[in-house]
């Protein structure tokens, strides 16, 4: 088990006042809060901060921890001396919070009285619904167009016959319904934590996220696509083939189209209850003059066409 230097984690001196402990924690917690800081590693750092604060904010736990001495270094192999906390009364229970998992170091020092099978005889019946679980699931845009089946592996703590907690892994196949959009939740009834006694299992909620797509972007149920076209397709109008997440379709480009114009294909967006639209955003691509003939053609255009692209700039 590695020693944890809680003072180093909060970047404070061992002599810091309780107020200074709080300020240091708040400052770092804001910086590394996983809802705010999306960098990888932020969540682990935040958990570590929570653990350090849990001990140092409580004067009794802090005094017990201080007793271990200052000579320990972070990550040094550590074993708690017998009766290390004699004379210090503190409770291992944390108020309210239920999501952080603390290190073995913390568990050994502060949670002993909670662990292990329940002592004493409790013969009354206890039933409670299991907790709901929340998770995110990343799917491809095409999965939302066509529906898909995904295999999910879930691990959940379960009590065995002796009252010991074991982590069980299982995998389930989830049918992703057609028409889901980002931010929507999929409910898997009964796949959350098991209930106590005769209580029902909780539900599992999956929040849908789309994997980044190289071609399409999605806003609500509408799907956008940047569509490159040639200057002559734009000027003359044309019928061209365009891709959609479920196959190519034909689309008419009207005469004298401009870059940035949006052409709508009704109901070709995400097939939700109220289906979205597909928007092709025109981008006129100008070919380079690669041969003498090309250059000749451009020269001819520049002579023939009275066109000032900078008219709006007044030059």
């Amino acid at each position, binding site marked *: 088990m590695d020693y944890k230097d809680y003072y180093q984690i909060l970047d404070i001196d061992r002599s810091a006042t309780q107020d200074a402990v709080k300020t240091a924690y*708040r400052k770092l*917690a*804001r910086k590394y*809060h996983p*809802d*705010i800081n999306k960098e990888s590693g932020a969540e682990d750092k*935040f958990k570590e901060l*929570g653990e350090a604060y849990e001990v140092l904010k409580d004067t009794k736990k802090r005094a017990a921890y201080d007793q271990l001495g200052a000579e320990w270094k972070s990550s040094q192999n550590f074993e708690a001396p017998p009766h290390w906390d004699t004379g210090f009364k503190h409770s291992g229970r944390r108020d*309210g*919070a239920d999501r952080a998992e603390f290190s073995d170091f913390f568990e050994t020092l502060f949670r002993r009285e909670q662990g292990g099978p329940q002592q004493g005889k409790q013969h009354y019946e206890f039933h409670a619904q299991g907790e*709901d679980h*929340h998770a995110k699931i990343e799917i491809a845009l095409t999965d939302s167009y066509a529906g898909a*089946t995904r295999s999910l592996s879930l691990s959940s703590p379960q009590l065995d016959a002796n009252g010991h907690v074991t982590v069980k892994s*299982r*995998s*389930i*196949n*989830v*049918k*992703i*319904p057609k*028409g*889901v959009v980002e*931010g*929507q*939740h*999929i*409910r*898997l*009834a009964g*796949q959350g934590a098991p209930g106590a006694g005769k209580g029902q299992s909780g539900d599992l*909620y*999956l*929040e849908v996220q789309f994997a*980044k797509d190289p071609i399409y*972007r999605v806003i609500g149920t509408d799907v956008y696509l940047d569509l490159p076209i040639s200057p002559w397709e734009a000027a003359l109008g044309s019928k061209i083939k365009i891709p959609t997440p479920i196959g190519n379709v034909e689309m008419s480009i009207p005469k004298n189209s401009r870059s940035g114009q949006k052409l709508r294909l009704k109901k070709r967006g995400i097939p939700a*209850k109220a289906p979205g639209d597909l928007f092709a955003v025109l981008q006129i691509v100008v070919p380079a003059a690669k041969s003498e003939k090309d250059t000749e053609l451009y020269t001819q255009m520049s002579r023939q066409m009275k066109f000032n692209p900078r008219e709006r700039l007044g030059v």
Partner: protein
Amino acid sequence: MVILPEDQQSAEIMEMVSLDELCRMCRVQSHWIIELVAEGILEPEGNEKSTWLFTTKCISRTRIAWRLKEDLGVNEAGIAIVLELLDERESLQHRWSRTD
């Protein structure tokens, strides 16, 4: 009748949730949700609390709001600003990744 393999779990898209459901799913009390609505953080459909319907995006919003309050001590007005700035940051990142 179609028999699905034992481990085949069919899923249900959630459309809208009521105030009670939102409270249960996020494990918060209804008076706090009412505060979030008053602050404009959540915008349910329906005029009466009993008929309020929330989009399922509100589930993640409420859970983030609760963590900000619990972990960082941010109050409701502060939560509103943080969520707005997070939304703005996300849409900027989207735009940035497009021009990249």
